[in-house]
């Protein structure tokens, strides 16, 4: 690729952050890449890879006080060196020629101004338009990004729009000044799969129509297979692999890229264990054996599914949850989060619950654990209706039904040591004769979930997301539950860590014979771990079938649209 066609050239970018008076942490360790003027380049990496730091450095949005940029680094945009440019020139350039969209459209838009006003402001400031011209142009832009009925929506406030529409408004704002480069930082991560698909299509269409360059930053390699021309894979502040999309997806050279491609569960195969990143990195250091060259294929398949006539452990009938929202001073408005949900769960089986945000899938889990009070229906466990028991009667059942939450950063009390976290449930339910015995059990469980013994005296903030989720799993295991509700338990984790935690959950299921209710928005993960899958939409069950059957032969149109929205690269 010749020098002139590259719109953006990043050379040897080294960035460190000051974390204390003398300590620094290196975020980028000499990163170089090029961005052609009419192409989409994907920057892919897990958390801590430095992908966002690189994009913020291009925009000049890094905090000046704590950022140390190596003097030998260079970022050239359209032939001009950006590093060392005076702040006001840089800002003028960045607002107009380089535009950026962020992950959270809800927090990027100002809630007290209308969508039309916020787009119009950009046009008036940067393009010198008067109010009338700006309004007309705003209408065109809203139509271009696919907002239905722009004439009405132009006067809508962000709160009156859905998440997908808000992201479309953000995109309209970004392209308002005809930028040469659009940086999209995880623009679909906060959105549902079907909306994600639409936004991806929109970005691809705009890129082609306007012939601009797009730098697409994501943690999900599978997502960019369809839209990226080139892919850059980063890890720990270094570029691991860079190449044309077809080559990176078809014949990845780097072990880490291969690992990223295969750690995600696939819809067509179900290996006994998911391959994890260490399998690949170990292989790259010791490249001898033939079988190690493809850990994802060398495995026997796991059989999932239900057989008729199984004795059910839990029978849920017509479960309903209605929330009362305050409407004005005295009125209340009913909101049915869950309506008429019925299913059975066999011993040692996994029921997957899939749905988009607002489908009521999390409410089902919380209501079953009585963390929400059900407004109707029953949940029969050994013939007793859990939902009808008094608090006192229900207490012993808390031992037998446990939950792992989505966010491992929020579900552990930050003021408790790991030891205290594990001992508390045992003390409450009087498991173990003495504290000494309980401490012994806690240490064994830590080892079982793959944490070092030294973890016992430490606090949650000293652990990574995956490790914290292991602590949460260990806390549940102290009670030896028969049913474990996993509420989006792997959704917040990096792909490689997600595979490890899924493997752990499967191992524990094999060992203890637990039943799982696995709630997730991620269809590939649910397909992989479930015997049965329940699809929910707007509080109702639209389809319930054996996992393989459902994915092979979906009956309901909504299920089909969900399946169609899964990125093809994944």
């Amino acid at each position, binding site marked *: 690729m010749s020098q002139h066609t590259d719109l953006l050239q990043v050379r040897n970018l080294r960035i460190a952050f000051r974390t204390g008076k003398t300590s620094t942490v290196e975020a980028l360790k000499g990163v170089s890449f090029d961005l052609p003027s009419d192409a989409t380049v994907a920057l892919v990496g897990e958390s801590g890879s430095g992908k966002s730091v690189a994009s913020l450095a291009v925009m000049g949005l890094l905090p000046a006080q704590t950022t140390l940029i190596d003097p030998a680094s260079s970022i050239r945009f359209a032939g001009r060196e950006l590093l060392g440019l005076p702040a006001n020139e840089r800002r003028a350039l960045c607002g107009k020629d380089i535009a950026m969209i962020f992950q959270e459209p809800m927090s990027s838009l100002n809630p007290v101004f209308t969508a039309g006003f916020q787009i119009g402001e950009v046009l008036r400031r940067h393009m010198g338009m008067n109010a009338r011209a700006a309004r007309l142009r705003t209408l065109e832009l809203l139509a271009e990004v696919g907002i239905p009925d722009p004439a009405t929506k132009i006067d809508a406030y962000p709160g009156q729009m859905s998440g997908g529409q808000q992201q479309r408004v953000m995109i309209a704002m970004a392209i308002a000044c005809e930028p040469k480069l659009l940086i999209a930082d995880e623009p679909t991560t906060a959105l549902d799969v079907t909306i994600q698909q639409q936004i991806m299509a929109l970005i691809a269409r705009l890129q082609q129509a306007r012939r601009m360059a797009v730098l697409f930053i994501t943690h999900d390699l599978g997502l960019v297979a369809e839209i990226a021309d080139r892919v850059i894979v980063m890890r720990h502040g270094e570029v691991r692999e860079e190449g044309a999309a077809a080559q990176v997806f078809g014949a990845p050279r780097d072990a880490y890229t291969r690992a990223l491609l295969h750690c995600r569960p696939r819809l067509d195969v179900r290996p006994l264990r998911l391959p994890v990143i260490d399998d690949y990195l170990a292989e790259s250091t010791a490249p001898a054996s033939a079988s190690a060259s493809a850990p994802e294929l060398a495995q026997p398949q796991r059989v999932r599914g239900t057989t008729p006539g199984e004795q059910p452990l839990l029978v849920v009938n017509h479960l309903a949850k209605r929330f009362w929202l305050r409407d004005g001073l005295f009125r209340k408005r009913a909101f049915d989060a869950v309506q008429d949900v019925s299913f059975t769960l066999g011993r040692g089986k996994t029921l997957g619950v899939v749905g988009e945000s607002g489908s009521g899938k999390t409410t089902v889990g*919380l209501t079953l*654990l009585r*963390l929400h009070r059900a407004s109707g229906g029953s949940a029969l466990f050994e013939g007793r209706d859990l939902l009808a028991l008094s608090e006192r009667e229900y*207490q012993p059942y*808390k*031992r037998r039904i*446990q*939950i792992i*939450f*989505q*966010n491992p950063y*929020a*579900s*552990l*009390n*930050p*003021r*408790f*040591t790991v030891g205290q976290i594990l001992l*508390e*449930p045992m003390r*409450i*339910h009087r498991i173990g004769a003495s504290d000494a015995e309980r401490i012994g059990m806690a240490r064994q469980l830590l080892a079982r979930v793959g944490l070092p013994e*030294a973890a*016992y*005296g*430490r*606090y949650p*903030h*000293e652990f990574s997301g995956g490790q914290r989720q292991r602590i*949460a799993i260990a*806390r549940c295991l102290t*009670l030896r539950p028969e049913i474990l509700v996993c509420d989006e338990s792997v959704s917040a984790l990096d792909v490689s860590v997600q595979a490890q935690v899924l493997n752990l959950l499967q191992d524990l299921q094999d060992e203890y014979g637990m039943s799982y209710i696995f709630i997730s928005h991620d269809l590939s993960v649910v397909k992989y771990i479930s015997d049965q899958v329940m699809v929910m939409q707007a509080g109702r069950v639209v389809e319930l079938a054996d996992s393989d059957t459902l994915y092979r032969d979906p009956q309901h149109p909504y299920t089909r649209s969900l399946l169609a929205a899964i990125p093809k690269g994944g």
Partner: protein
Amino acid sequence: MSAHLDSAGLWTLAWRRLRADRIAMAALAVVAGFLLLVLLSGAGLIAADWEREVAVNYAPPTFLGADPGSRALAQAQLPRATPPNAFDPLAAELAELKAQVAATHRPREKRTTLPFGADKWGHDIVQKTIKGGQTSIVVGLVAALLAVTLGTLFGAVSGFHGGWVDDLFNWFYSVFTAIPAILMILAVAAVLQQKGVATIVLILGLTGWTGPYRLMRAEYIKHAAREYVMAADAIGASSLRRMFGHILPNVAHVALVQLSILTVGFIKAEVILSFLGFGVPVGTVSWGSMLNEAQNELILGKWWQMAAAAGAMATLVTAFSLFADALRDALDPKIK
């Protein structure tokens, strides 16, 4: 990571952050110094005899030098030989008595200057300030402790349970805050009708819980919905355990900062109360009563009692505020 099995908790980390803050450590040293003075004077080791009239009235500070008139005053108070009175039938006995008294009870010579002067009765201002500080600081700390405890308790119950419990407390809170604070204090003072340090503590504590209540209630509402509290519910932890075992350690920093802010506020409030005559009883000295006395002295140009009380209070309040600020920064989990 070190090889130790146990590692630093958030409180230890906060202490480390505080240690690195020089202003905070200086402020802490000042506050600790004041507390030491309180302890020593409480134990009677210093300033125990502040009520002795060791100097002449309004003896100025040493660095100003003695008042020319006061030396004469000091001299004048020495017993002088009176000429014999021929008409006094008891003169002989009186002279004998006087000689006896003079022999056993020699009047001490009063000093004309003191390191920081003397008040109307000749009390040493330095000792009086220390003794007054004891009252003021104890009142401030204990009243703040009472107010924060009440506020935390009400806020926890109200924020955690929500619903009608919350409505009830909010109604109570609204009524309480609708009455102007100073009127409220005066009303409670009028009802209690008993002057004393304990009364002031009660007045301030019972009227001051609203601020901590509002903040703690908000914190409890926020934390009650957090996943770690739901997880505690799921493992079977009782609501008391969730409120005080799980949530309280996570919101204690708010209460702690409130405690330090209220202590400062109450020290100032005690001054105002004493100034208005609702404060400490006669015979007890506090910074407030000193300032109250000083308003008459200022007209005479005797500024040192006022300067001592105000200076001591300003130093403590400033140090305490700086420390509270640093404490808030060190404890805020977001700044890490």
